[in-house]
């Protein structure tokens, strides 16, 4: 467990996983009896007949709410739909959870194989948006501002996680194929592949992409930090990667695109890093939609009351409330923390010790910023104390003597400010 050293003068420093020795062999999670797919839209009126409870779906079948265009999810199992229910995600994102009682044999849906006869972006977006790594292809289809650069990151964004780097290193061919497919389908010539510095030489010049090296120290691989390192600027208020003409994609997503086009089958299996209570690491391979419970069962990890179950890594992950939550396309790690290991945040005020200021990779006056954010003065925080320089790495919260949830304040502030901007634009 992590703790402050007795001679607490040096800053804690963290490095990403490098996978420089032997590759772990992923443990395959057996097919669960039930799987849940999350359709990224809220439950609406008049569902498609294909979504009725009791309907049989095939592996690789594209499911939409109403047979028209719109958000879709690819079934990763063959089986009967046993329930359709609303589900609420982080920051109010709405989903429709489709539960499938799985069958033991896969029966593949042929629609994608037919559709990818000639590669076009709409087909890719329709079938591969929910592929492992969650390629954000929909953002390429009809962007308000055209995307001119795709940044593929080959490492992992959080500590202890090595799913993405594993894919890059073991499935290099698929990544390469994916880059070609992307170039062909989108016409975007500028593709940057950012890799951890240590593996830079292995990749430089081997890809049809501009390979860049990223330092191995946390938080160099945070998307916002990557954006700054590559483009030398930050995302200001009201800006997003997309309206800056940049699209971030993970190596896993690119590999999924490459593999899907090559094999004419949508990939439904993804690799995950599982961090157990003892801090051991397991690599598993599971289908999207598998409940976390099945994965934990396979690895022999048991949960107790007041344990914490996290999607993602220790610094930027998301805690979930139930082990029935399914693996999603962008889930690259599952972390389990024992109740005794958990240090909860408190409502104590900032005592101005300055630890956060000294550890902040963005040089933000966190002690001042947090005073504004605590008071709900988000705009002042943005104007006076560099809210938008934050790369959301969580180091400040981790060292906070008062144990303030600083990262939560920051993300809430950005979220609230982002909500007000469209409202203002609508009034103009």
């Amino acid at each position, binding site marked *: 467990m*992590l703790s402050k050293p007795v001679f607490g003068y040096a800053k804690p420093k963290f490095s990403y996983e490098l996978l420089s020795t032997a590759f772990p062999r992923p443990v395959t999670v057996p097919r669960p009896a039930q799987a849940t797919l999350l359709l990224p839209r809220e439950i609406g009126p008049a569902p498609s007949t294909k979504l009725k409870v009791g309907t049989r779906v095939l592996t690789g079948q594209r499911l939409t709410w109403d047979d028209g265009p719109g958000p879709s999810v690819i079934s990763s199992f063959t089986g009967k739909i046993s329930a359709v229910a609303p589900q609420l995600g982080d920051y109010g994102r709405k989903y429709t959870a489709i539960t499938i009682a799985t069958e033991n044999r896969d029966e593949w849906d042929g629609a994608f194989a037919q559709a990818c006869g000639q590669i076009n972006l709409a087909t890719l977006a329709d079938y591969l948006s929910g592929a492992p790594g969650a390629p954000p292809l929909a953002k390429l289809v009809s962007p308000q501002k055209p995307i001119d650069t795709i940044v593929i990151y080959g490492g992992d964004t959080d500590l202890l996680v090595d799913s993405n780097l594993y894919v890059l290193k073991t499935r290099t061919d698929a990544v390469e194929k994916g880059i070609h497919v992307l170039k062909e389908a989108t016409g975007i010539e500028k593709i940057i592949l950012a890799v951890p510095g240590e593996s830079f030489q292995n990749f430089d010049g081997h890809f049809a992409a501009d390979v860049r090296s990223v330092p191995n120290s946390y938080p160099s691989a945070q998307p916002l930090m990557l954006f700054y390192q590559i483009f030398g600027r930050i995302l200001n208020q009201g800006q997003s990667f997309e309206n800056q003409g940049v699209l971030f994609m993970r190596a896993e997503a690119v590999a999924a695109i490459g593999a899907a086009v090559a094999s004419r089958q949508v990939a439904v299996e993804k690799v995950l890093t599982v961090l157990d209570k003892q801090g051991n690491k397991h690599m598993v391979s599971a289908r999207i939609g598998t409940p976390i419970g099945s994965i934990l069962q396979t690895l022999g990890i048991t949960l107790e009351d007041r344990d914490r179950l996290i999607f993602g890594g220790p610094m930027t992950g998301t805690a979930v409330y139930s082990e029935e939550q399914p693996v999603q396309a962008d889930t690259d790690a599952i972390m389990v923390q024992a109740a005794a290991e958990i240090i909860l945040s408190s409502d104590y005020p900032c005592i101005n010790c300055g630890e956060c200021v000294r550890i902040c990779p963005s040089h933000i006056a966190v002690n001042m910023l947090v005073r504004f954010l605590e008071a709900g003065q988000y705009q002042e925080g943005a104007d006076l104390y560099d809210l938008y320089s934050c790369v959301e790495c969580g180091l400040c919260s981790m060292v906070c003597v008062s144990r303030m949830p600083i990262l939560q304040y920051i993300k809430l502030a950005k979220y609230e400010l982002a909500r007000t901007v469209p409202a203002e634009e609508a009034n103009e």
Partner: protein
Amino acid sequence: MNNAKKLLVSHAPFWHIGSAVPERHYNTIIAALPAVLMGISVFGVPALAVICLSVSSAVGWELLITRLSKRPNTVGDGNAALIGLLFGMLLPATATWWLVITGTFVAILIGKQIFGGIGGNPFNPAVLAYAIVRISWKNYFDIDAQLLNIDFAFPAFNPLVALKAFGPDAISQLNLGDLLIGHQIGGIGAVSGLAIIVGGVYLIARGFVRWEIPLAFIAGLFITAGIFHIVDPSRYAGPIFHLVAGYTLLGAFFLAPEDSSSPVNAIPMLLYGAMGGLMTMLIRNIGAYPDGVIYAILVINLINPLLDKIRPKALGKAA
């Protein structure tokens, strides 16, 4: 999976290095103990009584005020005890009971709670309280008169007062090494510079106090005192004397680096400390008071918000 476990949900990050507010304050208290023990060994039981009353009354006021203002009870974080201890360390061993209790009341209420409690205080509460009671009842702080009835094994006069009144000749027979060990009269916790340094080094090594402030404070005082001394040695005492006499070391290691009222960035911390040393020497050499540490610290507390505007450019902000 019907036996659903009740899992804990919270926001990222899910790691914490385990530091906490009480740990910080209790360690500062531990670091101050050697100096307190030296004071008790010099002044005897009266000093112990003052320290005990100061700590307990500060804790009592904290409890009472948080109770009355319906705020969470923060006694357990050790901050009130620390303020009481530091205030007691500043007092002479002869301080009467009502002086101590009034002082801790001022420290806890005016020094801290009216600004919203811990982290909100613009001044070091112990220093502010000392300044207020010092001005209000100055006879009680005439240490030479107060300690008249106690016999000491060393020249028993307040070196800074003697210096102010009679010039450097009056203190020429004092051995600076003796002063450092604790053979001087003054505030209970301020007599032994050596014990304070031991505590201060502990705090710096553990990371509870940054080295910048104490070191800059001492350097600022040393350089300013040196300049005065070089210009006119017959009127101004040397820098080493000023370092070991009065509240200098206590101020540098325990009072100036107080979290809430001191800066957090490197350059502001250095400026803050150096300015404290400079102000101390200006008050001692050309001001009205024999010891300037208390007022110097109040002055640097006051400029702290301005100093912390000197900060590195945040990521992506144009220079």
